[in-house]
């Protein structure tokens, strides 16, 4: 299975939508790899640079409520995937984005606000990083010499998709 974790990109706003993750004008690309330069291009947040080092190095995104709202475009998970980001942690997700993540064998993990606040407290630290154990349902946030573990729940189906590496092979075997 994939390993989940690494440097964290903090996006401290609710309702980050699919058009901000990957604008529609790039949906004419035929390969996932071609989406790579356009990650989060239209997202405007204080201190955030879509072309910056933090974006480039990130392996996990942490955000707030209703992440991935809007379009059904799977280009949103794909642009994360081709940039090395395979997990998003948020208070809640839009349904289609969440399912698209799991369908691709990636993780969309919901945490309560109180836990997210503790994770966001690391946002100023250069070494902020997270490791995620899907099978055990725990993630560990580290940075600034501190470390804390949080437990999470994903549905049995979503867990199976992550472990199977996505929905197509799973469905083709079973249906």
């Amino acid at each position, binding site marked *: 299975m994939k390993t989940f974790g690494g440097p964290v990109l903090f996006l401290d706003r609710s*309702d980050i*939508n699919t*058009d*901000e993750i990957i*604008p*529609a*004008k790039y*949906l*004419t*690309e*035929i390969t*996932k790899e071609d989406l790579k330069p356009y990650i989060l291009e*239209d997202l*405007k947040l204080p201190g955030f640079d879509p072309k910056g080092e933090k974006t480039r190095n990130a392996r996990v995104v942490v955000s707030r*409520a*209703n992440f991935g*709202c*809007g*379009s*059904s*475009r*799977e280009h949103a*998970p794909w642009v994360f995937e081709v940039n090395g980001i395979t997990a998003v942690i948020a208070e*809640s*997700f*839009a*349904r*289609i984005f969440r*399912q*698209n993540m799991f*369908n*691709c064998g990636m993780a969309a993990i919901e945490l309560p606000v109180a836990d997210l606040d503790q994770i966001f407290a690391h946002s100023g630290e250069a070494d902020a990083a997270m490791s995620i154990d899907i099978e055990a349902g725990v993630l560990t946030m580290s940075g600034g010499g501190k470390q804390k573990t949080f437990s999470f729940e994903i*549905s*049995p*189906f979503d867990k*199976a998709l992550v472990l199977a590496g*996505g*929905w*197509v092979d799973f*469905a*083709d075997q*079973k*249906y």
Partner: protein
Amino acid sequence: MGKTTAEKIFDAHLVNEPFPGTKVLRLDAVLCHEITTPIAIDDLIRRGKDRIFDTTKIKAVIDHVTPSKDTKTATQAKILRDWARRHDIKDFFDVGANGVCHALFPERGFIRPGYTVIMGDSHTCTHGAFGAFAAGVGTTDLEVGILKGVCAFRQPKTIKFNVNGTLPKGVYAKDVILHIIGKIGVNGATDRVMEFHGSTIDDMSMESRMTLCNMAIEAGGTSGICQPDMTTVEYLWPFIKDDFAGREAALADYSEWRADADAEYDQTIEIDVATLQPTVTFGYKPDQVKTVTEMAGAPLDQIYIGSCTNGRIEDLRIAAQILKGHKLAPNVRGILSPATPAIFKSAAKEGLIDIFMEAGFCVTNPTCGACLGMSNGVLANDEVCASTTNRNFMGRMGKGGMVHLMSPATAAASAIEGKIADPRKYL
């Protein structure tokens, strides 16, 4: 205990429950367009599984950028076209016959009460207007739908909206749904079905019901759903007349999909439309709504009438009624995109196209185009559009551009005045 419409559809289509809380459903319609389907097709080829589960249940259209604007969009269209031919997909709509998917497919009678429908497009919820469970999905779900004719869902809870009263002058389905989204928020219905009931809905045409259900996703909803009734039967009659002894028989059959009186809901929300006003968005989220009175005078550069939300004949009639004898204000440009060829033809026959053109509108072919900033009316940085579409995200219709969502009536009044304007004075 009774069941909601979605529960009845889930029970009737259940293949199995591979894990607690996840239901795999048999699909009645898998709809495809050229933006999200080509990557599914490529992936199926790559996996050595270039097959489809059914040549009649899969429908395909080139609609987002059409006719193609460049090599990339031409390639997407070609991949879909070649695939549709290769697999003998019966209902494939190419240039000349194509239109906006969520207007075209219902118009062809493809969506029936009790159906399960998926498409790689978030506004698939539109089709719930027919009493169907219709959900937007990503490319992977679409790929599995194409290959196997199934899709996995969490059993959604249902919010019941009791919408009652007579719509005041100048207030339409678009205003009702913008008001509802404003009330419950952009994630107010996440993992929920929005089931619409009440006298206002009963009085609505199928076109209006489609407008209503179209924007369920803007509140996070999985599907909008209206209750099938005689209006549904009348709309579908040309396609179903050989299947039933008469309209009453069709109604009796379709009524089985109506929610039971003792169905259990996650929440029930009462909406009294008698006090509603024309409603307009002001920010970059569809739940940021104000009345047209509050928004009147806001500056505009472009008026856009079209899309899967409001590009149907009823919408064009309402806008033309207001525009008749008027000109676009000199500071704005107007674009009309009838959503399908049939709508375009009707509008021409009824003289509506003349009214729009005499007012100074550009009339484009049916396409999604400008709604998502792809073609045929993209905004420049800092430009503002009064639009009958469904999404006002920052840059949605062009990088740095702003969108105010509104009804066709409000868009037409705004076209005349060159700024956001109240349609009621023109009615």
